[in-house]
């Protein structure tokens, strides 16, 4: 823990200026990312996950302003970067994997060339042939069968899963320190999802990069992430290690997310969803923006935003329930079951291992896909 984090985000706020007023897309977001670590950012649609990562890459729309905060990447303040410095950074030190592989590749360019493009861009000395060889190497690394044969293919000739592998190859081409994956599996079939997640994990251990993994589905987080940031209406409402978030959740919103997730490790009678809809970011309500959807909302939630309460070195939650003046409330019984496990095992190491990808799927398919064989999809040529 003495090592300096690769990335530090401090009190970051981003606003969008639109005809109707100012949208406060993210507010006061802080987190850290260490080398080789995976941080998951979880939250509903519109909670500001993509805006956060776009800001890291200097890719925000032109109507955006960063109204406060700092981003330090290896000690350098990214917000002071020029456009040229960002271009150097993007695709090189920080790379991105997008949600929909069907639309993120250029349909008019050969896949091999799209991978080579990054290599040539970030390595001035490399020859074309070497770049092609490296691109081919990457295609093999991400598990594309008969890569030589498919080097000259166009994206539309490939299946979604294969295209996402190609997008990952593009991301790896610049040897990134940080890999940002913005919902990399949401557009894919469940079985393919597991394979892509597995591939990412595998690659991470090979190249020792850090990953920021964005999803609206807590289920896929378990096997992937070391730390989790739960976002709501542009703010991080709970932040902790994966075990802390899963077995000692404190924020009612996290409870809601956990209860709406099908899971194999806690007996659940039913799945419940969080009532209501997220607030209008143009006119945020007074107090805690989550209060109108919170069954455990206190009077004060409608008056004042809660501060962060620290639960451990690594665990923070922004809810008035943690204030010492707050009454004792009883969380839903599924959460109590989680807390029980936490009490029983206490420390991280003693926790039962969270099943690798099973949590991502509905109960009945969980068993079949829990242990995906790497490359299972890859053997058949017709899968491309």
């Amino acid at each position, binding site marked *: 823990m003495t090592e300096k984090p690769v990335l530090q985000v401090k009190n970051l706020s981003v606003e969008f200026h639109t005809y109707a007023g100012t949208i406060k897309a993210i507010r006061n977001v802080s987190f850290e990312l260490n080398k080789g670590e995976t941080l998951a950012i979880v939250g509903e649609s519109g909670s500001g996950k993509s805006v956060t990562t776009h800001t890291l*890459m200097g*890719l925000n729309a032109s109507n955006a302003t960063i109204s406060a905060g700092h981003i330090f990447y290896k000690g350098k303040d990214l917000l002071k970067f020029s*456009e*040229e410095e960002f*271009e*150097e*950074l*993007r*695709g*090189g030190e920080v*790379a*991105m994997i*997008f*949600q*929909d592989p*069907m*639309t*993120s*590749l*250029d*349909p*008019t*360019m050969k896949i091999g060339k799209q991978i080579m*493009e*990054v290599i040539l*861009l*970030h390595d001035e000395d490399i020859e074309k042939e070497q770049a092609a060889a490296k691109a081919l190497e990457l295609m093999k690394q991400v598990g594309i069968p008969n890569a030589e044969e498919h080097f000259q293919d*166009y994206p*539309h*000739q490939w299946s979604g899963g294969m295209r996402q592998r190609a*997008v990952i190859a*593009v991301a790896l081409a*610049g040897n990134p320190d940080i890999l940002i994956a913005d919902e990399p599996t949401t557009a894919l079939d469940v079985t393919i999802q597991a394979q892509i997640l597995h591939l990412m994990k595998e690659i991470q251990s090979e190249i020792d990069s850090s990953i920021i993994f964005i999803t609206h589905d807590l289920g896929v987080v378990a096997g992937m992430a070391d730390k989790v940031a739960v976002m709501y209406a542009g703010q991080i409402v709970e932040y902790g290690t994966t075990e802390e978030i899963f077995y000692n959740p404190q924020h009612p919103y996290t409870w809601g997310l956990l209860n709406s997730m099908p899971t194999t490790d806690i007996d659940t009678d039913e799945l419940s969803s969080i009532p209501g809809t997220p607030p209008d970011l143009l006119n945020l309500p007074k107090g805690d923006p989550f209060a109108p959807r919170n069954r455990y909302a206190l009077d004060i939630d409608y008056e004042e935003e809660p501060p962060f309460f620290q639960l451990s070195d690594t665990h923070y939650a922004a809810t008035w329930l943690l204030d010492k003046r707050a009454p004792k409330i009883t969380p839903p019984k599924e959460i109590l079951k989680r807390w029980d496990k936490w009490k029983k095992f206490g420390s991280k190491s003693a926790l039962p291992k969270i099943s690798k990808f099973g949590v991502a799927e509905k109960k009945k398919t969980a068993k079949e896909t829990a242990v995906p064989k790497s490359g299972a999809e890859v053997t058949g040529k017709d899968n491309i």
Partner: protein
Amino acid sequence: MAKYILKRILMMVLTVFIVTALTFVMMQWMPGSPFNNPKLSASQIAQLSKQYGLSKPIWQQFLNYLVNAAHFNFGTSYINTGQSVSLMISQRLPVSMELGIQALILGVPLGMYIGTYQAMRKNTARDYSLSIITLFFTALPDFLLGMLLMLFFAIDMPIFPITGWNSWMSSVLPTLALGMGVIAFVARFTRSQTLETLDSDQIQLAYAKGLDEGQVIMKHAVRNSLIPVLTLLGPLTAGLLTGSALIETIFSIPGIGNQFVSSISSKDYPVIMGTTIVYTILLQVMILLGDIATAIADPRIRLGGKD
């Protein structure tokens, strides 16, 4: 791809067939049409009757007409008596094609450039001004622009010849008159296509690779928005056919359009019918060329198996 082109050619033949059938119907029933024109002399009627086999049943007449049309035999003009319509058309067609191609060469690249530039500078003052300018030229009909150009640059300031088609100078004003509309049309379309492309995930990925704006535009955006622009070749040609008919009249250019307009006012039916069929074929060919160009530029069509 061969299958795709074959399909297009079939559609094209069908369209030309339908238009030919329509002209046949009009030749038959229209008051003052070649077959029932009171002005015709007995010998002319006899000649027509022989040429079209008027005594035969109607379907045979139609077959006859089709065969004639397929050989570009549209009979002889009423006004320039005795002159073969196909000869009249074939003499004048090259002039019109030259004018049309010049307008396309001027308009398409410039329009694409302006549209792309506007998309890159979306919602800036320059984008707004260019939008208003291109809209102005959309609202201004070609022939009116032609008259204005003639008024300002040939009459008030005698820089260019007023009429004719005999030198490069004489082609400047007509080409501009036709080309400005093309620029405006292509620019507006390119702008919207490029905006759509720039909004897509693939462009986000291109930026995420570390490409700068110029590289993103040149390497990824242009090619993707070029594909739909190629399909404009058809509609553009349709506009040019109409536009050049009037421009040729105004500038007294000896093209097929000029002849067409005067044949309308003099009710010279054989010329009207012949030109109509030639116009239809021209447009079909241009649509086909546009489709082939699209297929070449778009691997999804070229290699089959669209998304």
